[in-house]
């Protein structure tokens, strides 16, 4: 039985290896609640599709995204972008960096609800929600977690977003990474919120030394070029 499962896993890996480069890759933006998944997804859409289009609303209330949202047909074309606007760092509000990107990648971006092992409606009440509304949101949030897990079956690669100001060594992060490794799905860790003073992307790199860790600020647009280049390299 175990050997049958192992063969199935090897066949899945081979199938992925052979088919990944042919079509459009479905890339999931995963992470715990409030890591900045919707902000990153919006940043990608603003940069490469339409600067007025949002896939969702980012707020400080956890589990704001409670349904996975797929934005199809995004082309990350760094060469075209750098020709279009040679002095920008792809929408960065930070210092200008020298341009080097020529990578191109077609993908569907999937903004997923935050993964969590617990959802307590009292936490929403702390943000001023009435009890009934908090309970409704908690119920939707549990459904969102299940939906995010189910999406893993259809994902070709993931950007796992972590908050650089938080301890990265959480069981949720470990479980996501373990699952991706077992499925042979490529993974990039984005250490988000590096614009904050207590950010420590190095702590994330130390916790997961076997994976690429790209420090970014999705909110400020810092270091996005590095992330896009890594996405184009790993997900093509």
């Amino acid at each position, binding site marked *: 039985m175990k050997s049958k499962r*192992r063969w199935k896993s090897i066949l899945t890996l081979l199938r992925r290896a052979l088919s990944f480069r042919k079509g459009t890759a479905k890339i999931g933006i995963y992470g715990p609640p409030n890591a900045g998944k919707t902000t990153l997804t919006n940043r990608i859409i603003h940069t490469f599709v339409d600067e007025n289009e949002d896939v969702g609303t980012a707020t400080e209330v956890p589990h704001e995204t409670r349904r996975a949202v797929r934005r199809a047909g995004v082309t990350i074309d760094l060469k075209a972008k750098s020709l279009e606007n040679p002095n920008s760092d792809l929408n960065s509000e930070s210092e200008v960096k020298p341009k080097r990107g020529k990578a191109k990648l077609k993908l569907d971006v999937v903004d997923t609800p935050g*993964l*969590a*092992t*617990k*959802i*307590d*409606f009292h936490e929403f009440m702390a943000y001023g929600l009435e009890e009934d509304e908090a*309970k409704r949101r*908690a119920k939707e949030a*549990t*459904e969102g*977690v*299940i939906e995010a*897990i189910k999406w*893993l079956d259809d994902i070709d690669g993931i950007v796992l977003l972590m908050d650089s100001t938080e*301890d990265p*060594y*959480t*069981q*949720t992060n*470990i*479980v*996501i*990474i*373990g*699952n991706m*490794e*077992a499925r042979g799905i490529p993974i990039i860790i984005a250490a988000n919120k590096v614009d904050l003073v207590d950010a420590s992307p190095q702590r994330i790199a130390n916790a997961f030394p076997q994976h690429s860790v790209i420090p970014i600020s999705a909110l400020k647009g810092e270091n996005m070029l590095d992330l896009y280049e890594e996405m184009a390299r790993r997900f093509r």
Partner: protein
Amino acid sequence: MEIKMNLISEDKINSMTSTEKLRFVLDGVKSGDIVVLEGGLTSEEQMKLIELTMTEVDDDFSGIEMSGYPSKKGFLNIRKKTRLTVIGPAKMMHTTKKDKDLISAIISAI
């Protein structure tokens, strides 16, 4: 108030199917027990446990706290060897520190 801990041997865990393991763990945690599994759960089983937990979250049960040592590479670096996993009710258990070989948690009665 007393807190019950169930320390489950690897042999006992290995005699169960994945579904039985998850049901066993969640039933224990929902009754307020802390469940410690020698040999632990695989990351796939942990993901299924999160999924199963989410179907059972309600006003009284807010979910689980789970901590485990990461799995070790096994034979020829192919098969992974899982290690200890500890699971408790989210309202009672709070992990304070965790690294590759250490888990510190505070467990308090509701």
